[in-house]
C-alpha cells in the first residue's frame, strides 16, 4: 500500500520555482533514496513535506496514507507520523534534551488522543534508545544540541526518531558531517527502524550512505523533478558517471 504519495508537486520560495512537477510514490515498508546535485530541490522537498513556512506549494499534492499533508501545521504532520531528520539540527538553548523529547512525544500523543507517557516510563524508553545509539545518558540532561559535535547532533536526531517512532522518516543529508564510525552507528539506528508499516525517504548527495542504508528504490532529482528511477544499482551508476548527464534535463 502506498504510504507517501506525491503528485505533480510544484514549490516556490518567494518568486523562484524550485520544485516543478515532482511525482513520487513510497509504499509502506520500503526505503526510497532521493539523489541529486546541489540545488536540485532536495532540501526544498524535505522542508515542504515537514511544513516549513515560506515554501509555497503552487500546484500538486502530497498525502500520507491518503490524507492530505499540505494543509496541516508542522506539529499536526508530526502527530500523523512525519519525521524530518534535519541536515543541520537546531540548537535549543536552555531546554534539556530529555525535557524536549518528552514534551514532543506527549504533544504528539495528545494530538492523537492517546494518554501521556509518565516520567518513569519515558526515562526507561530514553535509556534504552540512548544505549542502542551509544549516547552517554548524561548528555540528554544538557540543552538540546548546544555545543554538540556534528556527529552527536545526528545521533540525537536518530534518538528522537527512535523514541517518537514515526511512520514516515525523511532523512535529509543525514550523512553530512559524519565520520565513518558515526555513519555506521547512525545507519544501524535507522536500519533498526525498518518495519512493514513504516516508509523512509533518504535524501543524499552521495552514494556512500546507501552502502549502509540499502534502498529499495533510487530516484534522481534534478531541476525540481524526478528525472530517473531505478533499483539500488542506479546509485552505483551515478557514483561512476556523476550528475552531469541530468544537468541538461529540461526543467
Amino acid at each position, binding site marked *: 500500500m502506498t504510504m507517501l504519495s506525491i503528485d505533480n508537486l510544484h514549490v516556490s520560495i518567494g518568486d523562484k520555482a524550485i520544485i516543478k512537477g515532482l511525482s513520487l510514490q513510497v509504499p509502506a515498508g520500503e526505503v526510497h533514496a532521493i539523489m541529486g546535485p546541489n540545488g536540485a530541490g532536495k532540501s526544498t522537498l524535505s522542508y515542504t513535506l515537514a511544513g516549513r513556512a515560506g515554501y509555497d506549494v503552487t500546484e500538486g499534492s502530497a498525502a500520507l496514507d491518503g490524507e492530505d499533508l499540505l494543509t496541516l501545521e508542522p506539529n499536526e504532520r508530526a502527530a500523523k507520523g512525519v519525521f524530518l531528520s534535519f541536515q543541520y539540527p537546531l*540548537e535549543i538553548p536552555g531546554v534539556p534534551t530529555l525535557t524536549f523529547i518528552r514534551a514532543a512525544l506527549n504533544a504528539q500523543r495528545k494530538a492523537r488522543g492517546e494518554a501521556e507517557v509518565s516520567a518513569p516510563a519515558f526515562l526507561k524508553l530514553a535509556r534504552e534508545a540512548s544505549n542502542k545509539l551509544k549516547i552517554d545518558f548524561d548528555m540528554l540532561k544538557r540543552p538540546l544540541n548546544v555545543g554538540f559535535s556534528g556527529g552527536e547532533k545526528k545521533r540525537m536526531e536518530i534518538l528522537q526518531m527512535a523514541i517518537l517512532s514515526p511512520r514516515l522518516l525523511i532523512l535529509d543529508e543525514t550523512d553530512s558531517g559524519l565520520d565513518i564510525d558515526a555513519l555506521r552507528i547512525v545507519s544501524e539506528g535507522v536500519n533498526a527502524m525498518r518495519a512493514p508499516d513504516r516508509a523512509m525517504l533518504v535524501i543524499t548527495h552521495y552514494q556512500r550512505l546507501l552502502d549502509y542504508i540499502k534502498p529499495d528504490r533510487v530516484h534522481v532529482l534534478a531541476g525540481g523533478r524526478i528525472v530517473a528511477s531505478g533499483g539500488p544499482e542506479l546509485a552505483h551508476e551515478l557514483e561512476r558517471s556523476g550528475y552531469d548527464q541530468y544537468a541538461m534535463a529540461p526543467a
Partner: protein
Amino acid sequence: MSLLKAIEAGDASLLPSRRDEAWRYSDLRAALRAIPDASPSAATPTTTAPLAAVKADHEILVLNGRPSQAAFRAKAGAPQVLRLRIFAHADHTLHQGAVAIDLDAGADLTLIETYEGQGADYVSDIALAITVGAGARMERIVLVDEPADAISISGSQIDLEPGARLYQSVVTAGARLQRHETQVRHPGGGADVRLDGLYLLSGKRHADLTTVLTHAAPDGTTRQLTKGVVRDAARGVFQGRILVEEGADRTDARMGHHALLLNDGAEVDAKPELEIYADEVSCAHGNTVGSLDDQALFYMRARGLPEHEAKALLMQAFVGEVGERIEHPGAREAVAAWVAAKLESLA
C-alpha cells in the same frame, strides 16, 4: 523633581518626567495630568496574596498606603520569612506608604514583597527603608501583579553593613506605569549583593526596573541579571547603575540584561551604566535584545510541539535562569509557577 514634592504641593508639574534623567523612560508627568485625591481607607482583602504558597512567620499588610505595622526588626537567630503585602483598593485616587525593615547583625530574613490591587486607575507610591546588619542575610523576593491601568511606584533605600548579604529578585507584569527602584549602599568588606529582575509584559503595560548600587569601600561583590519578554505595545525599561567610588578597590561587579521582543511595536529601553573610580576593579556588563528564533520554532514544531507550546518552552528557557537563582525553595517554586502561567499567556 520628586513625586513626594509634587504631591505635597498638589502640583502635577513638579512630577518627575522624561526631562529628569532618572525618569527618562517612565514619564510620570505625562501619565498623570493632575494630582489625584487621596485614597480612602480600605477593607482587608479577601483574596489570596500573590505567592501565597510561601509560608510566612510574620505579615505586614499595607492597605491603600496604610501599613499594619510601620517597622519590622529581625533579630539574629533562626531564618524567618516576612510577608509584606501591598494592596490597593481604590478608584482614581492616590496613596503613599512607608515601611522600615531592619535586620540585626547575624539575622536571616526572607522578605516576600507583593504588589496587587482592585479598582481602577489608582496611584500607589511605596517607600521602603531597609538596613542589613553585619553578617546578616536578606533575600528579597518581589512580585508586582498590578491591574493594567494602575500606576505603581516603589522605591527602596537599602544600607548594608560589611559582611552583609542581599539577594534580590524582582518579578513584574508591569502596569500602566510601574516602576520598582532599588538604591543600595554597598560597604564592601566581604558584603555580597545579587540584584535580579524579570519583566513579562503584554498589552500596553509598562515596567521599569531601576537599580542604583554604590560600592563605597573595598572588597565588595555584586551580581545582577535582569531578563524580560515584551509583547504587543508593552514597554520594558531597565536602568542599572553601578558606581564604584574612589577607594572601593577590588570590587567585583557583573551586570547582565537580556530581553526578547515578541513583535514589532514592543519596546525595551536599557541603560546599563558602570562608573568606576577605583583600582583593581573587575566589572563587566552585557546587554542584548532579540526575538524568538524562527528556525528553532520550526524545528520544535516539526517534532510535534504546537506553536504555542514551542514558544512557551523557548521563553521559559530564556527567562528560567532568573527564577532559579532564588535561594528560598518555597519562593523559588511559587515564582516559577507564576512565571510559567504568565508565559503561557504571552506565548
